[in-house]
């Protein structure tokens, strides 16, 4: 079980959170101009990183807020926690 540090509530048990998948995916501004390949990539294709993964988490059974996490998919270690809308932080590989 992970302890996740919510930016508002502090350290809480992983049970209170849910993972919302990869972060920094930007919805296309003009989807009508995209072909099926590009739209399919946007909807379905993910990085599936071995190493540092930037992902969204929500403190659903807590303050209800979304935030971003940099987590190693190898060790499960949480390397950074930052606000939605911020750039990817520098983290050790």
């Amino acid at each position: 079980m992970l302890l996740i540090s919510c930016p508002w509530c502090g350290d809480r048990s992983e049970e209170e959170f849910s993972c919302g998948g990869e972060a920094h995916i930007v919805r296309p501004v003009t989807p009508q101009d995209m072909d099926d390949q590009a739209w399919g990539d946007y909807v379905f294709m993910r990085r599936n990183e071995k190493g540092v993964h930037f992902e969204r988490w929500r403190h659903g059974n807590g303050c209800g807020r979304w935030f971003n996490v940099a987590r190693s998919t190898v060790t499960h270690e949480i390397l950074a926690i930052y606000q939605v809308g911020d750039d990817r932080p520098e983290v050790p590989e």
Partner: protein
Amino acid sequence: MTGPRHQPLAHLALAAAREAPRPDAGVTLRALPYQPSIILRGESGDAAFVKAFRAGLGFDLPLAPNHVSSHDEITALWLGPSEWLILGDVGPVAPAGQGRLARALAGRHHAIISQGDGRQIIAVSGPRARDVLGKLCPLDLESPDLAPGHCARSILARCGILLHPQPGGAYHLHVARSFADYAWRVLAEAGLEFGVAIASGD
């Protein structure tokens, strides 16, 4: 303000009333009577909103995470940076704008959401109250962040709760009405090893 026609835990309280008192019980469970409540939404960083709340209810909205403040039978519990639970009668929510909170906040960016009778509060008290919650809830109940004056949303077994520590080592647990029966039974079961008493009345 009128209460619900049907108390969510009436069936369990009736059964409990037939049991003999347990003076040796480590844990006492009590279904609290209906209390009016609303959810207030607004931005912590909106100084005009915060000021208008104070003007309307005479005390400051808690802005620090997981803090509680109260005044004159009204209690405000922090749920999130833009969300509070207000316990007590702050005036009618409908028709819109009639209550004293609604009047104070008129023209400010906010939302007042009536909770109706959608919530049930279960009071858990007794010398082993913390022990029984510790079996079911991942919060660090010994932390100073959960002393009276604080609150936290979390989970109790498989159900979402709002935990509101009380003076004297008791806790108020807010659960959604439809989870009241589940929460009560899981508490009663987890408390068996300490002895459970069911309190009736207010």
